């Protein structure tokens, strides 16, 4: 099935077939990584802008490398040093970038829905690189691809998300993608960090990690955001470690061959023990590598869709 969208705003609105198209497109891009020259000319002459209103190293770098390996020109805008501090509105910033002929704008913002506002007001393609607690679609896709690569399927797998589900856009994108692809998704964490209505998305809620981990194929461990402790959402780091740290002992109840995932950056010794992070079950570094390939596939598919869209325009005239 062809991919015909202008933007990638979230995985909620994608159909199962569209997600499958993206996943099926990743491998050729990953093949480039083993060459001495890791670059292909597919996006030559295109301009990709990283517009980040929140600090980020790995996601921004990953998008930058992905775009550069496709030969696009990449501009990074950190908003602390841009006109945004002078009070320029989001849409005006976007219009300015478009006037500079940006083809694709990758945006991260603390406010959910920001990428959508930009998408509605600009002709450039928008990729959501994380908006508030809403979604982080490329992280969801790279997690999905990593599972697919290792387990050769998604359907029927039992997948556990551990930790702060409430504040995690990674968890939301994972849940949308995984449930659409037929996985059985469980979430576990302190009751204050699990939104009650999350069950409506077809996931099973647990509060006891030892029960939740039983027979799972994949454990995806979310980062504990330390600032949440000041909001009294969990009593203490010590207690969190006692109840929810993923340790080798606890993993003994998972299925053999269980995959350990973490979107990074890790708090070793808090949500994940060092021995688990360094174990052979952990695919955390592979997630990072796959992230580049997945983002290349997304950039390529959106560019292809732009060309197709442009053609339609020409033909109808």
């Amino acid at each position, binding site marked *: 099935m*062809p991919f015909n969208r202008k933007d990638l705003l979230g995985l909620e609105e994608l159909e199962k077939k569209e997600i499958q198209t993206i996943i099926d*497109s990743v*491998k*050729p*891009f990953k*093949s*480039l990584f083993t*060459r*001495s*020259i890791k*670059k*292909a*000319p*597919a996006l030559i002459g295109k301009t990709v802008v990283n517009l980040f209103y929140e600090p980020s190293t790995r996601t921004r770098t990953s998008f930058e490398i992905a775009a550069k390996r*496709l030969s696009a020109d990449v501009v990074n805008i950190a908003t602390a040093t841009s006109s945004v501090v002078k009070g320029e509105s989001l849409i005006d910033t976007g219009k300015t970038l478009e006037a500079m002929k940006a083809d694709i704008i990758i945006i991260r913002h603390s406010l959910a829905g920001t990428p959508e506002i930009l998408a509605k007001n600009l002709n450039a393609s928008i990729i959501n690189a994380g908006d508030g607690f809403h979604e982080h679609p490329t992280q969801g896709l790279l997690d999905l691809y990593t599972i697919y690569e290792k387990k050769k399927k998604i359907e029927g797998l039992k997948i556990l998300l551990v930790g702060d589900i409430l504040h995690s856009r990674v968890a939301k994108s994972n849940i949308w993608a995984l449930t659409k692809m037929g996985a059985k998704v469980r979430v576990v964490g302190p009751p204050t960090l699990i939104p009650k209505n999350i069950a409506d998305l077809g996931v099973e809620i647990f509060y006891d990690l030892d029960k939740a981990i039983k027979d799972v194929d994949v454990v995806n461990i979310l980062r504990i955001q330390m600032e949440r402790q000041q909001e009294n959402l969990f009593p203490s780091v010590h207690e969190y470690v006692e109840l929810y740290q993923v340790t080798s002992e606890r993993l003994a109840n998972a299925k053999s061959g269980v995959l350990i995932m973490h979107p990074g950056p890790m708090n070793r010794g808090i949500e994940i023990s060092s021995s688990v992070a360094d174990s052979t079950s952990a695919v955390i570094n592979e997630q990072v590598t796959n992230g580049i390939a997945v983002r290349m596939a997304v950039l*390529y598919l959106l560019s*292809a869709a732009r*060309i*197709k869209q442009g*053609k*339609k325009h020409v*033909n109808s005239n």
Partner: protein
Amino acid sequence: MEEKNRKIILDSGKIQTAITKLADDILSKNDDISKIAIVGIQTRGVYLAKRLLKELTAKKNTDIEIPFGILDITLYRDDLGEMGADFPTIKDTSIPFDITAKNIILIDDVLYTGRTIRSALDVLKDYGRPKSIQLAVLIDRGYRELPIQANFIGLSYYTKEQICVELREVDGQDTVYTCN
């Protein structure tokens, strides 16, 4: 698919003959079989390449394993902007050997404008610097748009009509025909 003006150019027997001829020609120009490597262009060039590989190995009666790779040109096309709704699906490229100092036999089904080959040369360039690249095609249908020629040709059949190649591995049968 039944086209109205379908005219058979090669049947399955003639395809086999053409492949045997290609193998003979390749061997006559490449004394040292240990230096050659086969690379097929996606999609049907890959299956032709596999058949040629078998043929070459049998003819030389050798234990030397000829390196084999597959190549997709999608990311290197110069006409992506003109593809419209027929935007190609990207396929895998896998060249699991060092191409440096090798004589690469590049294989495709039909040679026409030369643009596919131009792209394939660019792909190979990003893998290293082979000693030589030699082009083998099942059909040369002429009408080049670039200064590119094949070293080994199964059949020259100059035509402005489109040529379709069906191979049993993907299409269930071996046949080459005009398909306008």
